[in-house]
């Protein structure tokens, strides 16, 4: 395949029973999807995982951190933002 070409993954319902179960247990079944990996999305994901939920954290950027990662320090303590 060439760069940019879209590879489609099989839809779970296309699979036979056995594969479906495997897919659900290990694969793409989750409890919560969190859209956005800034400080808020990260905290929500951490809390949910601590409670015992499986979380998909989705971000548009190649790394999580969001705007807070771009900040130098934070008020009113001037702690390092990272």
């Amino acid at each position, binding site marked *: *395949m*060439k*760069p*940019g*070409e*879209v*590879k*489609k*993954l099989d*839809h*779970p319902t296309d699979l036979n029973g056995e594969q479906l179960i495997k897919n*659900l247990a290990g694969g*793409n*079944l*989750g*409890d*919560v*999807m*969190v*859209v*956005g*990996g*800034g*400080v*808020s*999305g*990260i*905290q*929500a994901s951490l*809390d*949910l*995982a*601590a*409670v*015992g*939920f*499986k979380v*998909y954290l*989705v971000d548009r*950027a*190649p*790394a*999580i*951190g*969001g*705007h*807070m*990662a*771009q*900040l*130098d*320090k*934070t*008020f*009113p*303590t*001037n*702690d390092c933002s*990272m």
Partner: protein
Amino acid sequence: MEGETGNFKVKLRKKPRYVREDKCTGCNTCTEYCPVQYPDEFNQDISNNKAIHIYYSQAIPLITYIDENCLYLKEEKCRICEAVCQNEAIDFNQTEEIMEISVGAVILAPGYEEFDPKIRADFGAGRYDNVITSMDYERLTDSTGPYEGQILRPSDLKPPQKVAWIQCVGSRQVNPPGANSYCSSVCCTYTQKQVILTKEHDPETECTVFHNDIRSFGKDFERFFQRAEELPDVRFIRSYVSVTGKDPETENVIIKYTTPEEGVKEEEFDLVILSVGLNPPPDVEGLAKKFGLELNDHGFCKTNPVNPMETSRPGFYVSGAFQGPLEIPETVVTASGAGSQCGELLSYRKGDLSVERVYPPEKDVSLEEPRIGVFVCHCGANIGRVVNVPSTVDYALTLPNVVYAQEQLFSCATNSAEEITEMIKEKDLNRVIVAACSPRTLEMLFRDTLREAGLNQYYYEMANIREHCSWVHPRQKDEANQKAKDIIRMAVARTHHLEPLMEIKLPVDKKALVVGGGVAGMTCALSIAEQGHQVYLVERETELGGTARQVYETLEGLNVQAFLSDLIKKVYRHPLIHVYTGAEITGTAGYIGNFTTKIQSTRGNTEVKHGATVIATGADVYTPTEYLYGEDDRVMTHLELEEKIATEDEMIAGAETIVMIQCVGCRNEDRNYCSRICCNESVKNALQLKEKNPERDVYILFRDMRTYGYNEDYYREAAGKGVVFIRYEPEQEPQLEPAEEEGRPVIKVTLPDYVLQKNIELDADVIALAAAVIPSAGTREVENLFKVGLNPDGFFKEAHVKLRPLEFSAEGVYLCGIAHYPKMISETISQAYGAAGRVLALLSNDIITASGAICEVDKNKCVTCGACIDACAYGAIEFEETDEAGLKAAVNPVLCKGDGLCNAVCPTGAIQLKHFTDEELLSQIDAVVPEEEVAETKETAV
């Protein structure tokens, strides 16, 4: 995106990174060789980056990606990165993947986008080089920024000596279109932060902030503003401004502004920073359409006014700035709150998809001769470019009992960590040292590699050759290399004395205690109970409701009393909530997961056991001693006015002139904070007074109008409806005097008008004082009972102002509502859900683990002086009766946090901190300074 609550199907498009995540170690070699340079978006396009690079220096994952500027992706040329990567991590065959996932609920946290001042060419943005945005400046001051923390202005890359900030860029503006009517809430304080940082960089820099109201409405913000304002050569000037041009030679920017003393002025600045506001996230409409959500008038997510995390679609929750401009702690609060609501929804399937970690059984190696393994990390180039890593590996092998040593590119990479586990087994190691970075972030990970190999995790030691060496001595390579060896030698010396320690496993009592039955306490209790946990809700008064009982309507028009009675009903009806009213807590003991509390209430005396405690004890309203309050019944507080408006009191109905005075009892020496809610409360009352009778005169005498966020719209509405806002300074407070005006008894209010530059007089029928919100009367009691801290203003102090706003440093104790700081009802509700989320993160565990690195008393050496008991901040040490020696100090291992303060004060050395014993620490000191050297130094000294 399709489906419904509990079962959404989501299609995700995963973009190719063209770099294999399992193979890339983030060594950055590819980035060095990549020939394509283009502006780095992360650094606000100020500096360049390469087409293959790591997103930012501390990114997670810390691996490279290739973006659309790549020559190969554009023109099928180059592929140098592929050739230089030793790990074969580059993979141009990667394609976009469509993934389909099923989830029960969705949390939306897409954040915000900074306002782009170039759109309207505001204040010379895009026209003058030396006009930049506050986010640009944020990158400039950052040590990982474009000039490694040097502040250089764009036109000539020289440090600016005279810097100006212009506030409210893109905020609080309705004309011309393109900007936002709301207040972005964060800009005043981030500007003050930037001023302080600028002065720290170079104390000579002159800083000027042009603003219209300083909105220091958050916890500790007022003091922060004072800290910025009191710095030398810092000016805060209240004035609208325009950027009128630049000096063609120096490229300095000219700002025109007005002061009451000097009139219109023009002044030149080296650098102008636009304090830009917060816009909805990029492509917000597409996002809303995709997920079937409604947006509000400002383009942010439309949320339920009594539940700011609830969207228009069931199963979808908002976290963070997607609900509107928020500062960091509030986004963290809403994150935990949204999490708690997902928990309520999906409680039935909790834990079904989680997998328990299983470790191999631990080997007993305590009697074996130490067999030490040393792993030295390059940390990409972070250590490797300064320290000669191979030479440190050779050196380590010469040290006593070191049987194995190797280098690693990134010890923290998953495959490297697995390699450590494998080598422990293969070389039969029983002590492990990783020479890399600070233990603060990664010690947990490396301890885990030992557990995976069946070793006690306390046999692990970290040698910090990055923060303590390569980062601080980048230009003295030889000395740094020697220092790295010294640090490794110290680690080896200490490792000889390490002992295996057991961690303590504690059962968790699954019930919660909520102290305070106001909106915060009740909301929190309900959310916890909805997730299957019993809650004891304790209220001092005989009725539930708290401060909200005095509030009738919110600015958004919510009927508070109806909401409150509904909430109270829900609480009483919930089978898992046990309500105690007229209650007093007479004692509490225990620790995280296991508390016991005694309650005296209308139901008699009870003792309850609980795993978590929530403090939601609310606040009080200041009783004014100024402005004739209590002497003249025409003078009342803002809450009393609200009640009289709601109950259609005759005096209010007939009043022709109403004067409101802001900041009564706070923002002064006694209470150096802003009560946050009062500007909004007065605007609300003013709007209602005008609605009932548009002909009457309403005046609001203020110092700074702090109608932050969307509330700015109501401020504008009030001004539009003829409410008159007059600013006063604390040095010249309004003077009140009962008088008679044309036969009408009035209270005469006199104050200077800074715009008209003369005194004005108002004849008021009613005076409403915006009285401060003050810590509740029971605060000290709660502080002592639960061993929690207070801030300088007497409000409860959270564990971390930004990242842990919902809990105390005392573990297992959480915080919400106005006991934390004054706030709106909607903000209280956010925090209540947030605290519930944090409580659930604890109560969902069957057991919790306490560290093994704690203090222990040698009873034979203890002289019962009690010095350790005074030193311990956690109340972990008490005297205990022993059989043979009488009263001796004893450490409660669960409460001990291992800070070692008691060690330092013990006169006989009876207390030792395990894992940091005198023997372990002294061995390190002996290793760094050999005895011969000490002897020599002594001789020289003689």
